[in-house]
């Protein structure tokens, strides 16, 4: 799937995250988190896994994490991808 428009999903509540997607030529992922030192690599791995599952190869992906668990990261990213890829 291809990111064709700007979209976001999630909230700034604790245990949640905000995902921002924008069309771009290449793929960039930036992660901002209160726990980035401890969990940055794990969050990144989850994000990569979900992007790959949906065949997203390009776009700007920004994550603001508020201590979300894996299931929430997956869900919010999924929602953002659906919102960003629908015509």
């Amino acid at each position, binding site marked *: 799937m291809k990111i064709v428009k700007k979209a976001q999903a999630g*909230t700034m509540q604790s245990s*949640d995250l905000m995902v921002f997607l924008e069309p771009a030529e290449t793929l960039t992922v930036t992660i901002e988190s209160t726990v980035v030192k401890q969990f940055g690599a794990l969050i990144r791995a989850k994000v990569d896994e979900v992007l790959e599952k949906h065949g997203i190869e390009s776009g700007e992906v920004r994550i603001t994490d508020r201590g979300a668990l894996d299931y*929430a990261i997956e869900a919010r990213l999924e929602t953002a991808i659906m919102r960003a890829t629908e015509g």
Partner: protein
Amino acid sequence: MAAFKLRRSLLYVPGNMPSMLQNIPIFNCDSVIIDLEDAVPLAEKDAARHLVKRFLLNYTDRNKELLVRINPLDSKWGYEDLKVVLPAMPDGIRLPKADTPEIVERLDTLLTEFEEELEVEIGRFGILPSLESALGVINAVGIANSSERIFALAFGAEDYTASMEIERSRGGEELFNARTRVLWAAKAKGIQAVDTIFADVSDMEGLRAETELAKRLGYTGKCLVNPRQIEVVHDVFAPKEYEVEYALQVIEAIKRARQLGTGVIALGGKMVDAPVVKRAARVLRTAYAHGMVDTLIDEEEIHGAQ
């Protein structure tokens, strides 16, 4: 009739809040109703159902009944809610605005289709219809009989009072007829009746009084809006020590009666016969579920050998 399942407390959890969803495993309520309807803003319906699906798929070590309140079937979200959430295997669906038997039949058909598609047992997903309008209350009997998936009827007073164009009072006198009608329909069908929410989380006395009223009428459970309400509700629905003691005496008395070749006997000056035994059996089943007695009473003790 389905196996006895304790459903004293059914706690609503907003579907779009990870911080609440994640606590579901540690809440000590009997059932949880994850809400995709009123607790989720219109712009977040898609987000909430994805979140609930991922949460449920991840919650493999399940320790309570998990229901999902979908959006009404005639809204543009209801069908999509089912499609996204059912593969994550909730135990059942709470159907809002179940005003007619036809609406419930439609859900029943959809659930059967999804069960076939998911290759799970037909009837796996239960239905808890919400009777929450004048029409729903009037149709209670038809609704109770509209699907074998229905394990209980739920009365929803907030929407009901809105449909009646009245205010809900602390004493709840205005709800009396509707509460009773929902109960009759449930009892006639042999299913449970679940009472409405009590919205004021800070008023524990009011919650206790309303729960006691519901129990006295015949309700066996209550919907809750906050985990702080669980303890009061469990306390009210737990059989009292003296009730359990008396129920045990009733069972002993009726066994003695049968040895004497009769179905009726006096206990402490009061007549004990079949209906009294039936009530005692119910108390003991609930007591068993609360861990207050060690053994589950069997049918032969209740009815005697043929």
